[in-house]
């Protein structure tokens, strides 16, 4: 050992250096453990499978009086089919575009209403009309194919 005591304190000592090295190694060690844990936890998110783009509802099963709605599942999300009082139909994703409560239809005021933070949407266009929602409801396409109603995502 040719111990040469450090003069002053500005120079990097061997102890500082090995300390930094140890610190960096520990951080790398911890990070290399964090990666598999994160991947493990995220696995559930991919289990959703590919996005469902279309549902087929047999007309016979769709008993929706004018001025009322039917909820159905589109993949993992709820959708809603509305039978307007002038006998036209529209369909939307039923999740409120704000924080994902499920909107309801209020026939007396002819609007979609979200009870959570009182968002309001237009029942024909899905346009956000009032409250916190910053986006319209997701519009779905409704088509008749023989005895079936085809409801599909747009875009």
């Amino acid at each position, binding site marked *: 050992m040719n111990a040469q005591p450090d003069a002053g304190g500005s120079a990097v000592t061997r102890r500082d250096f090995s300390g930094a090295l140890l610190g960096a190694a520990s951080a790398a060690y911890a990070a290399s453990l964090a990666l598999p844990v994160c991947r493990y936890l995220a696995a559930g998110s991919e289990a*959703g499978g590919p996005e469902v783009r279309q549902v087929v509802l047999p007309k016979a099963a769709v008993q929706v009086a004018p001025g009322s709605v039917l909820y159905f599942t589109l993949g993992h999300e*709820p959708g809603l089919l509305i039978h307007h009082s002038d006998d036209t139909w529209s369909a939307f994703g039923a999740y409120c575009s704000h924080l994902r409560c499920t909107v309801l239809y209020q026939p007396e005021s002819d609007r979609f209403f979200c009870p959570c*933070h009182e968002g309001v949407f237009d029942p024909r266009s899905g346009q956000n009309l009032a409250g916190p929602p910053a986006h319209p409801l997701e519009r779905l396409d409704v088509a008749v194919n023989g005895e079936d109603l085809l409801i599909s995502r747009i875009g």
Partner: protein
Amino acid sequence: MPGHVLHWVDERTGLDRLRAAMRHKLVPVHRHSRWYYCGGLALLFLLVQFLTGILLTVYYRPGPQAHASVQRIVQDIPSGRWVHSVHVLAADGMIACLLLHLASTFFMRAYRRPRELTWLCGLALLAVTLTAGFSGYLLPLNERSYAATQVGLRLLAEVPAAGRPLADALLGGAEMSEETVHRFFALHTLILPNLMILLVLVHLALVQAHGLSTPPGQASPPGGHGRFLAYWPDFARRETLVWVTALSLLLVAAAFYTPDLGAPADPLKPTPLGIRPEWYFMPAFQMLRLLGRWLPGAGSEVVGMVAFGMAALGGVLVPFLDGGSDRPRRARMIRWLGVAFLAVATLLAGWGYLSSLAQVN
């Protein structure tokens, strides 16, 4: 004989030092002394949560049977309704005590040097406790808790940086599902309780290390007598009395109170009118509603996030903004900010209940 045993144990554990510390610990006596019971009461309720929580896990089933299994506990299992009610009421009691404890340490300015870390550790405990309330709320998987969890996870996902991955990890899928209930169950029964034990130990060690602070203006005159109570046995005796009273009130109240279990969650049903969160989330909830009313669309989202962030940051900064005894004006300003915060939160909560009621009528 027992003396020998005690000595034997002391020699091997150093427990005698803890007992000596308890004997030397002093509790300041002043006009606001009674608030010192709040922290301890929160601890009592926490212990009650551990015991009743363990009992509930015996029959609770996360997953598809979640709602049915709670219904079974409440309706079929002997004493199940009572155990369940105690758990629900003690959760509310614990959070109420925590808020009182926070308010009292705030207004007594107990967070000042050298107790900044005690305050921060306390805030962490509050955050963990609120998360426990949030995660427990989903477990019976009823209509209300389904909507509340959607909203909570969406809000979390909007937090910059860590929010999104955290929300995804909790959700466990593209959409809320039974998978989510499993993850919340693990959070509620394994992760958070262990975190709480750790944080409570640190919190209490810090309180022990610094002793209880005497609020400014209540300090004993030099050489004054009778301004302190020995923790052991004098304060401990009173604290025991307070604990037994609170525990008995809780147990009796639970016998008469049946929490509403609600209808099972159904993703194909709209969120019920009159939906509202637990009382301690009411101010935040009503703030989102009002922002939406006054500032429709994207603006409300940004302002809401900034408001939440500022409240959290404000809490963390309190001990560092209080300038100490040589900056009385700053201290006064912080106190008034605290009063304003409290007033606004109370107002929002009341307003929130009224507007949820108005929806159903």
